[in-house]
């Protein structure tokens, strides 16, 4: 995030004064209140000079290509539903841009993977080996399965392999959607990554309970029989909070890693593109453009890398938990 914020500061410094004022005019306290009251903004809430925030945050509107001039975005306002109150928590289930993106990612996953599976099965039945698209899907799937999931999950990994594969493909498509025009990175939203991490956490704990039975409790309550009797309660008091914190750190790191990587990359790309307009010169603008293209390629790599890392770490955590604690 550091280079991103630095570049953003550069951008703000170079922007015209009138572009800066609306953002600056809102006092920090009001900002906090606004964010607390309504963290998912509508379409036209931003300062005209700030084009980075709407790109990386969620909104209740969707940009779609215009027709017939597809390069002119057309904004579709998504419906607002009444929020649901469960206890003290207000849940606003209105579809947002990121919900749509998640749905598109899921749909793409289905189309690509089910299509690949069909082609794979079809060609395997006809001539004994897959070809083309099915073969490519098989290669990626088998790579994740045989190199990422199976070696880390421990013995009898088959029950957890679909979860790892699903995580990989879903995160990958959600990441890639942010790189195409009119798209947005749903995995650049902490809610999405936190949910995925939370689900991973639940799967990890479930795996621990299933393979260790009552031994699972020892992953929370530290009780080491190798220690002298006097030391056991002491270490119990000292280590048990650490064990609990260790448990919670893993999903937290998963969530923040994916979120920060996605957001940072996009901020860098957008800031570089912003520099082109800030300089208002063809000569100087070329350099940030070239850099933006470079960062975009890096982003393409990062999209795959982060999906890979998320699934890898999920399988490592599950495997660690299953192999029995200590």
């Amino acid at each position, binding site marked *: 995030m550091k280079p991103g*914020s630095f570049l953003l*500061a550069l951008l*703000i410094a170079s922007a015209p004064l009138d572009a*800066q004022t609306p*953002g*600056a005019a809102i006092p*920090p306290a009001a*900002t*906090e209140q606004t*964010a*607390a009251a309504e*963290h*998912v*903004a509508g379409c036209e809430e*931003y300062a005209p*000079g*700030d084009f980075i*925030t709407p790109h990386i*945050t*969620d909104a209740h509107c969707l940009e779609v290509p215009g027709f017939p001039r597809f390069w002119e975005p057309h904004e579709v306002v998504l419906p607002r539903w009444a929020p649901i109150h469960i206890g003290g*928590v207000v*849940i*606003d*289930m209105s*579809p*947002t841009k*990121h*919900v749509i993106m*998640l*749905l598109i990612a*899921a749909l793409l*996953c*289905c189309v690509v*993977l*089910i299509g*690949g*599976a069909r082609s*794979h*099965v079809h060609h*395997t039945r006809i001539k004994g*080996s*897959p070809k083309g698209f099915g073969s490519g*899907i*098989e290669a990626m*799937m088998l790579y994740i*399965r045989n190199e990422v999931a199976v070696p880390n999950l421990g013995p009898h990994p088959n029950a957890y*392999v*679909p979860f790892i*594969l*699903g995580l990989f*493909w*879903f995160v990958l498509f959600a990441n890639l959607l942010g790189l195409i025009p009119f798209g947005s990175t*749903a995995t650049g939203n*902490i*809610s*999405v990554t*936190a*949910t995925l991490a939370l*689900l991973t956490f639940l799967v990890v704990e479930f795996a621990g309970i299933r393979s260790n039975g009552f031994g699972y409790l020892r992953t929370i309550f530290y009780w080491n029989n190798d220690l002298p009797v006097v030391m056991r309660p002491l270490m119990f008091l000292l280590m048990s909070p650490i064990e609990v914190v260790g448990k919670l750190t893993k999903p937290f790191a998963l969530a923040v890693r994916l979120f920060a990587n996605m*957001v940072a990359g996009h901020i860098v790309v957008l800031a570089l593109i912003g520099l082109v307009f800030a300089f208002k010169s063809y000569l100087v603008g070329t350099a940030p453009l070239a850099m933006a293209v470079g960062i975009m390629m890096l982003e393409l790599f990062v999209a795959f890398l982060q999906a890979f890392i998320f699934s890898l770490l999920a399988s490592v955590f599950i495997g660690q938990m299953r192999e029995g604690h200590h």
Partner: protein
Amino acid sequence: MRNLLRSLVLLAASATPALAEPAPKNLLDPNYGLMVWTLVIFVALLIVLTKFAFGPITKSVEAREQALEDAIGAAKRDREDSARVLAEHRAALDASRDEAQKIIAEARVAGDRVRADLVEQAHAEQANMLARARQEIETEKTRAIAELRREAVDLAILGAGKVIEKNLDDAGNRQLVESFLSSVTASAVSASR
């Protein structure tokens, strides 16, 4: 979780005012609706993919791996079979060659034995004939000696008759005859040798 995130955000906001000020949005504020959406979408996706994509591909891959394994196993088996058959043929060839050698050797041994037998038989026959001839000669000789002795006795009797005719009790004559007879016997034995 939310409070933790809040405090983190506040920390970040105080550390980087440049980011916080123009952006009224809080990037770390969770949206529970979106979280529920994510959960629902992901779980539904997981179920659909497991059923329609991962399952069939895994099954297909396993089937292909099985087929490949079977083919490799069959090829290995065939190779072992052919190697075994080759070894058998080679062994059979060796065996028949040995047999032929043995037969030739046996034939040679049998021939040798037959020849030896024949030679031995010839020798035996020869010896037999020789022995028989010798025996016959001996027999003839004995008979000839007996005949000669009878002849000599006859001659002696004849000579004695003649002497007696002339000189009936001449003791000196009788002694003469007797000495003559003994000389005849000795000479006859020496002649037969």
